[in-house]
């Protein structure tokens, strides 16, 4: 896959094509997705102020795959993501128990170097969170923080990553203008670029398209697809058609009496065509949640 090519622009009339694609069966022979566990959660539980939000999640996420986390609001998807880069540490009285490994790294260990971990695990939020300064500085800040100060390397890193998210031609003449002047979709792609500029192993996206219009959402979605094989991608989405279009694996969460559980986990094909659990079947057919 050639990542230096800007992703093609989606025009409104290609929406039909996208709609059609949703009906295509999942391609299990995708060469990019390796059946090698990258992230392994064992009995992972998360509690806020003593209230369980997520209980006993057991899950192995494959390297290079796109894994979608789906389920109704409040079932602990965001909490799960935030435990992977220990953002849960920033929330007072939030307790994460169980085991969580990323390759050989014990994520939950006291001794884990958090700055290092978070460098390896990029995260995108629902609302674009550009920092209130220039586009260039948004991308330079993480690079500088992690030890790149050479002007040439900074510039080439910024250019590469902006090309990768297809923003380069849109912003190359205004890199020094405030990032908040970009449109919502552009801002979200800048956030993606900002996460990618650190060359992470894992990329987590928490409802990255929900605040975007269909066209920007399509652009971001195509971008995520282009990441397959290069990064281990976790994406939370409420858009089941989107999950079906882009995900290799799907983790379905459900909250039982306010406590989130992982109900079913499998390839997108299994989840959408032959779900094992009746809750899953009901949810994907739109009957519940």
């Amino acid at each position, binding site marked *: 896959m050639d990542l230096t090519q800007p992703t093609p622009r989606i025009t409104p009339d290609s929406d039909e094509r996208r709609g059609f694609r949703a009906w295509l069966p999942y391609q299990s022979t995708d060469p990019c997705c390796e059946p090698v566990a990258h992230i392994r959660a064992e009995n992972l539980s998360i509690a806020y102020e003593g209230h369980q939000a997520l209980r006993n999640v057991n899950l192995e996420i494959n390297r290079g795959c796109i894994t979608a986390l789906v389920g109704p609001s409040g079932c602990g998807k965001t909490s799960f993501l935030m435990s992977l880069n220990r*953002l849960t540490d920033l929330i007072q009285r939030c307790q994460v128990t169980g085991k969580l490994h990323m390759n050989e790294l014990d994520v939950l260990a006291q001794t884990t170097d958090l700055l290092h*971990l978070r460098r390896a695990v990029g995260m995108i939020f629902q609302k674009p969170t550009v*920092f209130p300064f220039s586009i260039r500085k948004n991308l330079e800040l993480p690079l500088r923080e992690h030890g790149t100060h050479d002007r040439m390397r900074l510039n080439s890193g910024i250019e590469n990553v902006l090309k990768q998210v297809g923003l380069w031609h849109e912003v190359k003449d205004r890199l020094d*203008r*405030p990032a*908040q002047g970009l449109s919502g979709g552009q801002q979200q792609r800048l956030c993606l670029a900002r996460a990618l500029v650190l060359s992470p192993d894992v990329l987590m996206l928490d409802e990255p398209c929900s605040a975007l219009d269909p066209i920007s959402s399509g652009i971001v979605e195509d971008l995520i697809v282009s990441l397959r094989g290069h990064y281990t991608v976790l994406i939370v989405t409420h858009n089941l058609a989107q999950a079906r279009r882009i995900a290799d694996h799907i983790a379905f969460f459900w909250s039982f009496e306010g406590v989130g559980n992982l109900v079913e986990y499998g390839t997108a094909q299994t989840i959408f065509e032959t779900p094992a659990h009746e809750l899953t079947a009901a949810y994907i057919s739109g009957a519940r949640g």
Partner: protein
Amino acid sequence: MSRQSRHVQEYGTTAIIWMAATMVVIPFLWLIGDLLWNGWTHLSWSFVFSAPQNAGREGGIGPILMSTMLIVGVCMGVAVPMGLGTALFLSEYTRHDHVLGRLIRGSLDVLAGVPSIVFGLFGNALFCQALGLGFSILSGGLTLACMVLPILIRTAEESFRAISREQRLSAAALGLSQPTTIRTILLPAAMPGLLVGGTLGLGRAFAETAALIFTSGYVDRMPESLMDSGRSLAVHIYDLAMNVAGGNPNAFATALVLVGLLLIINLFSSWIATRWTSLNQLPA
């Protein structure tokens, strides 16, 4: 309700609102006008820079201006770092309902309501006597610092809290350390609010009289060090108006200088604040 009476009501409301607004402006204009009327003829560069003579009836306010700058400088030099530090502690390192945070906030609210004469007595007891600094610019500046700290801390804390949680989370998610996050993201984002707080504090420090009478004293000579006693502009005005027969003209001129300084500070800080905001929000 008929159309006519609705009309009347609408105009009535508008008139009342206009009247209220005008009534706020009139005293302000009156005050400025009065100061200009009485003080302008005495105002000159030599008045601003020369030393007072004959207990201030003649001569200028050079040393007094100098002492004021030094006192306010000491005050802000101490209060700004302490205020920022405390505000960051309250907003970034403690929960909103943490016991220590609540204690600090509670004491600040009490301190903010304490009359400045009490700060003067306190400063005299602590800095002048207990710490042996005597009547000095240092004592006065430190006393003022105690007085403006509550304003600085509260406004700074509010500015930091107004920054969205997402900004902090995404900074952390990029592996930025806490000091980097504070320096590159929180401080710039809070800057307009910090400037407003700083201006309030600065204004209060410039205009303070009661807290300084007992701490930095009355001496109207040019100060040679921070350990010298020095008279501030506000104390000078008070002295000329209350204790010196025939001191009124120079009191008015001094007041004009003081009000002019305060206006300049206000305009300057709101200029920076809007520039700061527009710099960051200009469409790309």
